[in-house]
């Protein structure tokens, strides 16, 4: 079932020559985790604000579960939990109060809302902060609370604007684990924006790459990677002052004083490994192409 059907969407702001979104079309299916990647200013936040009905498109259409979002202003709030990138909403409420009121206003009974509050405080590691006001929390803690508030009330669809920004690695992992769990246990459809392509790859099922307001490509990462010319990434490190000698047809990219990177096809791997002076190597890493590689491939092709 199609959850979101975005068709030829365009958004122009007055006084800006370049549209923030231009002719964007894609679909999000029920129960999938869809990630939107893009550089700063690519139009990601503008896109999701239109999808949660906070901004009106200049052209095109958005349907949520087959119904246009422009006719019924409560259609989106009934179905979608939204986490904005930055917001001071509920800043003077405690974490517990913010979660309780959000769950209650989204349709839970008083008892259910209290249970939901406790469950979310626990799941998002906010229990120790339950009596602390949002304004007294660190940036990362506030982000976690905003995430939990978006989840409160068990929305069928979550739209999250950079859910892991400002979080330490441990908390980022917790966020991805929780989102995956929500998706697997409750079938929650999740659409999120991120800069963190490598970590997002752990949970992303389909990805859309946005560049200068246009959707460059959308699809499953493994399918898109088939279009990459060189699917393997080899990183090698030598002692200072020494450089690898490789075949002329392979492009070496110097990462640091002692570290190089090579993109190559699977069939080239044997030749490259044979050409390397293994005794001089201090480190070696072989990866298949990542979402980040995918991102650069498609963006550089534009």
């Amino acid at each position, binding site marked *: 079932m199609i959850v979101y059907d975005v068709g030829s969407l365009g958004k122009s702001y007055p006084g800006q020559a370049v549209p923030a979104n231009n002719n964007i079309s894609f679909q999000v299916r029920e129960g999938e985790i869809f990630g939107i990647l893009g550089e700063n200013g690519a139009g990601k936040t503008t896109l999701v604000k*239109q999808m*949660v*009905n*906070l*901004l*009106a*498109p200049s*052209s095109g*259409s958005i349907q949520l579960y087959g119904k246009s979002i*422009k006719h019924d*202003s*409560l259609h*989106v*709030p*009934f*179905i*979608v*939990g*939204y986490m*904005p990138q*930055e*917001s*001071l*909403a*509920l*800043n*003077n*409420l405690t974490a517990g*109060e913010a979660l309780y*009121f*959000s769950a*209650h*206003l*989204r*349709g*839970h009974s008083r008892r*259910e809302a209290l249970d939901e509050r406790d469950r979310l405080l626990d799941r998002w590691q906010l229990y120790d902060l339950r009596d602390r006001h949002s304004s007294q929390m660190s940036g990362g803690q506030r982000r976690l609370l905003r995430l939990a508030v978006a989840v409160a*009330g*068990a*929305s*069928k669809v979550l739209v999250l604007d950079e859910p892991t920004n400002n979080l330490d690695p441990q908390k980022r992992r917790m966020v991805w684990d929780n989102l995956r769990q929500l998706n697997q246990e*409750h*079938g929650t459809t999740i659409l999120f924006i991120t800069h963190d392509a490598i970590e997002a790859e752990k949970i992303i099922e389909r990805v859309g790459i946005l560049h200068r307001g246009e959707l460059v490509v959308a699809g499953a990462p493994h399918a898109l990677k088939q279009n990459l010319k060189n699917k393997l990434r080899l990183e090698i490190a030598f002692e200072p002052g020494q450089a690898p000698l490789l075949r002329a047809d392979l492009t070496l990219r110097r990462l640091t004083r002692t570290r190089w990177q090579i993109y190559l096809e699977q069939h080239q791997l044997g030749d490259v490994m044979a050409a390397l002076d293994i005794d001089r190597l201090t480190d070696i890493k072989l990866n298949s192409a990542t979402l980040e590689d995918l991102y650069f491939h498609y963006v550089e092709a534009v």
Partner: protein
Amino acid sequence: MSKRSRARSFPVQLVDLVLIELSNWRWCWRSLVVVGALVPLFGMVGLSIYARDLGPQALNTIYSGSLVMSLMLGNLGSIQSHVVFMRFQGTLDFFATLPIHRFTLLLAIIVAFFLISLPALLALLIIGSALLKVSLAPHPLLLLVIPLCVVPMSAVGALIGVNVESPQQGNSLSILTTFLFAGLGPVLFPAERLPEILRLIGEINPAARAASALRQTLIGPLDEQIMLDLAIVIGFTLCVLFLVGKKLDWRARHRL
């Protein structure tokens, strides 16, 4: 975990939103009380010195006018800055993504600020009557008149809040509006002391009408003018709330 949000009924939405607003302001309500009570109290004392020889009617006007000033300071200014804050800090966007109606949110803000302004009003009511030696004869209709005096001021505060382009502009406009309301008509000064033009403007000034209604239900005597006072106050409020609803940045306005 249920999979579909259900709309809460209007009273439940309202109670939740009022509680959210009150919780948001619980840390600074004291300063609102001080501003709402002390400023009009000083004004009341100053004006009463000037009006001492003008008789009890003039003192009654100063007294009721000061109560209206307190409501204006406690509601018009605070709601204006609150709405501006909500617009510029993303709070309004947060509420717009919840399954609630915008008029419920507006009403919740007005109710919350009314409750916050009550202690200042009560303090001024008691201290003022003692200072000015005004003898009170409260009519039961007062319980309706006090909230009705608050709503037009709150609605004007919200109207300024949804229209201004910056918080600074909002503050200047709300101060200007407060003084215009207080000065254009018999709010703080007896009608017979005002020039004809101000008396005429006062006929449609909701602050003057609110002061008149307060005077009649708090001090007496109550006459048929109260109906006209309340009709003008309610009519003005409905017009302003309609404009606020039209202008409020609330969810997308599709023009496709």
